């Protein structure tokens, strides 16, 4: 089970819960499970979100692999100048 943490304002859409153990193989499955569990969170996962998998940040990467022991942080998307 991957350890998943919601960061920043996202917990407002998950009844205040921020830590989950989820059986997911990639980001798409991660979003699907989170969205199914917290419908209010679902639209926020579609845009403006990045996912850090074991410290490496992925943006717009639905098929980025998540390992069984991975630590996954859902964070705001990062831009730049």
């Amino acid at each position, binding site marked *: 089970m991957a350890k998943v*943490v919601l*960061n*920043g*304002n996202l917990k*407002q859409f998950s009844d205040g819960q921020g830590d989950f153990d989820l059986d997911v193989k990639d980001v798409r499955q991660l979003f699907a499970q989170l969205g199914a569990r917290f419908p209010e969170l679902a639209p926020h996962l579609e*845009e*403006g979100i990045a996912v*850090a998998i*074991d*410290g*490496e*940040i*992925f*943006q*717009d*990467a639905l098929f*980025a692999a998540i390992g069984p022991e991975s*630590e996954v*942080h*859902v*964070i*705001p*998307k*990062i*831009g*730049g*100048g």
Partner: protein
Amino acid sequence: MSDSAKNDSGSNGHKYVGTRQVRPDGVDKVTGRASFGADLHVPNMLIGKVLRSPHAHARILSIDTSKAEALAGVKAVVTRDDINDLPSEMVPAGEMMVNYRDITRNVMAREKVLYEGHAVAAVAAVSESVGLEALSLIDVAYEVLPHVIDVMDSMKPDAPLLHDGMITQGVEPAPEKPSNVAKRVEFAIGDVDAGFADADVIVEREFKTKPVHQAYIEPHACLASVAKDGKAELWCTTQGHFVVRGHCARLLGMDISKLRVTASEIGGGFGGKTVVYLEPVALALSRKSGQPVKMTMTREEVFRATGPTSGAHMRIKIGAKKDGRITAADGLFHYQAGAFPGSPVQLGCMCAFAPYDLENARTVGYDVVVNRPKVAAYRAPGAPIAEYGAECVIDELAKKLGMDPIELRLKNAAKEGTQTVYGPKLGVVGLVETLEAAKAHDHYKAPLGKHQGRGVASGYWFNIGGESCATLNMSEDGGVHLVVGTPDIGGSRASLCLMAAEELGIDLDKVHPHIADTASLGYTFLTGGSRATFASGMAVVEAARDVIDKMRERVAKMWDIPVDAVIWEDGHARPASSNAGAFEPMSLAEITAMANKTGGPLVGNAAINAQGAGPSFGTHIVDVEVDTETGHVEILRYTAIQDAGRAVSPGYVEGQLQGGAVQGIGWALNEEYVYGEDGKLQNAGFLDYRIPVCSDVPMIDTVIVEVPNPTHRFGVRGVGETPIVPPMAAITNAIEQAIGIRFNELPMSPPKVLAAIDASRGPLADAAE
């Protein structure tokens, strides 16, 4: 003094990566041949001009364009009626997310004007002078409304509201009343209260910063041409022409694929050319007039109507044990977004304490609208503001603890495995290496004179990857056309060519770069977030490997051996071993020469969404001297140290460090927007918006630290943004050491410095001197 013209030989076994070479676009740029945004002329071209709001905040009652339309030589007039009204929808655009409802209103005011300089109408005419006369003939009836300029004033309950019905996001339960606060964000790890309870020393300070403009030397410019069948071409100066294409198509209701956007050479951007201003207006004017329309902003328009970065108010609190171990850090940030929501406060909250390995940390940010131009991305958006406050408090903490500021940083430095306040743990990073390099630098030990001081600060930026395409078109003589989609602001073509030559194993002078238009290459995100060399570089490497594989296949067929038995080495296909057969190696030129007979032209392609951008940390050292009679601060010596991962093109990496440092010097000492009581900007020009000039600064020494980014073929990290993060705090800390006064506001301009010196003296001390 380093010799910047030195032609280093590549290291780490590289022939080109890491060397200093003349950039491929260089000759065009030193001879005046390079074509920037305003340099294109086409037949039958009209000139477009924009009418801008004279008020900081007003309701538009009516717009009468009839007299302007009747003027001889006027070919089209457009207003809000010619740009699509769009519903609220967030899209990524360089810095955080932007909302199409707001973009369409920023490009052309609809219900209200929200800042002085807000576009209200535009004309296309046969000449600039006719266009300007036409503007004077447009009647706009306004109902002037009260305005608000300062971020803290804008948060007051009785502040004039910019957007009716804007409810603060991120607050539970949602407020009932609308306000100018668009959003609240919060990040936290550990238990901040417990951390402060555990601290022996706590420093808590408030800071204010002013908005500063990117101040690229080239004003915004574009040339649009829309055909009768709706096909359109747009030439513009932008950091991302694919992003411009998407925005313009949306704002004008066009099919994206009917619009072809070509990026001109770009005369600086620093984040400010990631959004659209003139481009949709020029397209609308061209569509209406049926003629090509060129538009350029004046410098005054650039200042009045395009995005600076936020001004801010913040409170920072950091606690530590006597031994220097930080127990807690807390930050509260209020950022001006300008007229529409979307300040970089969230990124500021994420970066504020990033150089430290903290158990307990919290950052809270507010995104606040005010009657100023909508902010745009500016180099490490959000980070310089938040890290300025944090790095000043760290310095004060070091003084209180009696510790050297570099030692305090080293004791708490973020490293691989450090958990960030925004959640994830850092991968391999090079902060400690920059701090050690600073400590070891002779600058750090040099003696100081009277009224001189030395300051240090560190800085962090994430860096990003993103969508990037690259094509390598192999010509029949062995030359390579390298095609990418990231506009070259600071020499990225040079580094991309170096990587292509390295990967293909051919001479650098065989590689010729080209920035393709939006019809000639797949979607490529903009040049920003320090991603061009990293992400386009990744695509170039992948495209090179693609064409190498294709060449190996061709050679395998020629030699009639399995493809696995052909390897690519030093620009040649060779048999993998003597077992594969005795074949003379074939050069790339030999292979491409017979390409048409062996299966057709050879092209390498890559279309990727680059991931794994490595963050970059930097540490700066600065010496200042304060004239205690005038408050003038002179920068005596400056050293910028940064982890570049791998400097592909060291001269241009140094240039990024030097340029970022000098922009930071301007931000620290003189740059600010001056508004009158009337809400109008008083210094919309380079005379009184004072960016550093050549005689203001010394040589900027650089030290490139290389802690390779493990996800990149050559170890590249983005380098462009981090260098603007440390200067403001480093200079503040240096001034404190010079005269014993700690400033908590930017800019530290002479009147403010002198007033503080006078206030610190008292009448008796003054007389004694």
